[in-house]
């Protein structure tokens, strides 16, 4: 992306300076971000240069069906500059939650950015788009979410799908999904889309994605599910500090037992760490303070597609669709095993009647041969 043609936008560094941060704070922030987005140390200079020379990136942040936990997470990311630089200074031209303007003014700002920076702005989407009943479940300024999304996506350079709602539908799309909540990638197919799932995603991860785009002008490398590899290529389980207890076979059996006090693995409490790809075990939350498992709670797999329908939160096994809430695969399997054994027993008994003559003839034949051997 060529930012240079954007008229008279101050650079990030200029903005940071104006805000009263020292050069030292700035460099700390740059180092932090470089590490987070998975670059090597030598890239710190590259990131710093981008922050100093490139003008602020115009960003439009749309909110649809969501709870704003993504925004909350973002403004609480560990380094103060993260929030400051990327929200205050990102030139967040439109964001329902954070902008000062409202009503006609806000709509005007949106329109202004869309025309002025056509093809250059980043579109961040928080929330899923309801497609049911012609989209009436989420309308802003008389337009449906889908209309707004289409209009704004048209001139966007790239789209970032913030959080599980925008990435895979999250709780709104849980069965039976009455509003037909739909993630962004199923609606917009002609733009590069970065999925940053999580409910919410980690603030540093969100900042990292933006810094990466700013530095290199392209979206970060994505995995097969469209998530940045730098943050989503490892299971929570594989980076969990309780992993040694898992390997040793030491598990918490109930939330108030001795094993829980000892900090054993939460696998049997339904921890979804082994099936969840996220940076929680490494980056942690609230400035590296903790993450769910460290706080003694199993991971619920909030950054995984369909985590509401694909499993119970406190159980490894999941309900088997169509057989009621309590029927997991093993319950059904045991019933099927019982039925099979019963059928086999019935068949075994029936064989002695249905094939009685054959069996009798064979017995006679065998007995006769046995007698001949005797004589």
């Amino acid at each position, binding site marked *: 992306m060529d930012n240079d043609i954007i008229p008279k936008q101050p650079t990030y560094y200029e903005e940071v300076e104006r805000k009263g941060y020292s050069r030292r704070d700035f460099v700390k922030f740059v180092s932090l971000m470089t590490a987070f987005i998975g670059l090597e140390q030598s890239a710190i200079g590259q990131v710093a240069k981008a922050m100093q020379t490139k003008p602020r990136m115009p960003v439009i942040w749309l909110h649809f069906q969501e709870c704003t936990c993504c925004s909350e997470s973002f403004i609480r990311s560990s380094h103060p500059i993260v929030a400051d630089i990327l929200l205050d200074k990102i030139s967040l031209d439109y964001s329902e939650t954070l902008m000062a303007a409202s009503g006609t003014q806000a709509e005007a700002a949106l329109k202004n950015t869309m025309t002025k920076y056509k093809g250059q702005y980043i579109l961040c989407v928080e929330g899923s788009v309801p497609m049911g009943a012609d989209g009436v479940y989420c309308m802003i300024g008389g337009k449906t979410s889908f209309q707004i999304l289409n209009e704004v996506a048209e001139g966007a350079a790239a789209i970032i799908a913030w959080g599980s709602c925008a990435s895979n539908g999250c709780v709104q799309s849980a069965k039976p999904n009455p509003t037909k909540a739909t993630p962004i990638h199923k609606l917009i197919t002609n733009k590069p889309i970065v999925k940053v799932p999580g409910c919410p995603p980690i603030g540093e991860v969100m900042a990292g994605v933006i810094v990466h785009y700013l530095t290199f002008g392209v979206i970060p490398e994505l995995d097969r599910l469209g998530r940045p590899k730098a943050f989503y290529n490892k299971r929570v389980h594989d980076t969990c500090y309780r992993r040694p*207890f898992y390997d040793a076979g030491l*598990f918490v059996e109930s939330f108030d037992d001795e094993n829980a006090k000892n900090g054993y693995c939460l696998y049997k409490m339904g921890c979804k760490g082994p099936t969840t790809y996220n940076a929680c075990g490494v980056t942690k939350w609230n400035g590296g303070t903790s993450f769910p498992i460290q706080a003694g709670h199993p991971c619920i797999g909030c950054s995984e597609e369909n985590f509401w329908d694909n499993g119970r939160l406190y159980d490894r096994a999941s309900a088997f669709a169509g057989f009621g809430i309590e029927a997991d695969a093993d319950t059904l399997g045991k019933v099927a095993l019982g039925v099979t054994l019963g059928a086999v027993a019935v068949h075994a008994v*029936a064989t002695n009647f249905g094939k009685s003559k054959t069996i009798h003839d064979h017995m006679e034949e065998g007995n006769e041969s046995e007698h001949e051997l005797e004589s």
Partner: protein
Amino acid sequence: MANKYLHIPRLRRVYVWELPVRFYHWLNALVILVLIITGFYISNPLGLLSHHDASHQYTMGWFRYLHFAAAYLFFFNFIFRLYWGFVGNKFANWKQFIPTSKRFFKEMWLVFKIDILMLKKDGKEQDHLSIGHNAMAGFIYFLTFIAFLVQCITGFGLYAGMSSWWLPKLFSWVPSVFGGDILTRQIHHWSMWFFILFAVVHVYLVFYHDYVEGRGEISGMGGGFKFIEEEMFEKNAHQTPNPEREDEKK
């Protein structure tokens, strides 16, 4: 006894299951048993009470290790069996498993009538001779091969993330098809029950055939021989499709 004029047939020894097939069969049985046991343990491990530190034990680790080791054996054994379906004898040929002719379906129906429904014809019990697999069994084995494939694909798909070897990495696309590891793991777990149910029916039917037909069904997988009545050769009455014979490819 002589006044009964018993017909005592002469039996001919037929080499049905070649050594590689027998080897495959028993290795497969063993690794599937190991995979089921370790798989159950991994999905729901025992609550160990230990006064040791975590560094002194590796219980879950060993179960997982066994599971993965058995999985590799299972996979290569499976590949080998597919290969043997092309180079082995007629009883091991892939045509015994995949219905390619009308005759196959007709025989399946026949087996169903004779062995499951135990229907009689003109008041007489019917006999049916398939020297290798009967068509019904062959088709069920075809389904097990599909189950093998499902387990290999989902299993290696889940394993790929931890591996640096190219072979499991070939399957790293799998979880994304199911939207993530959660569903992939569940499919892996559900499919496992097919193996348990199959094993029950399979073992029962082997006993059934040996009991009713007396042709060495059980020992066949030991020494490879079955014992077939002389007149069956004369009448050419056996049902086994012979891939080497052109006139049977209808």
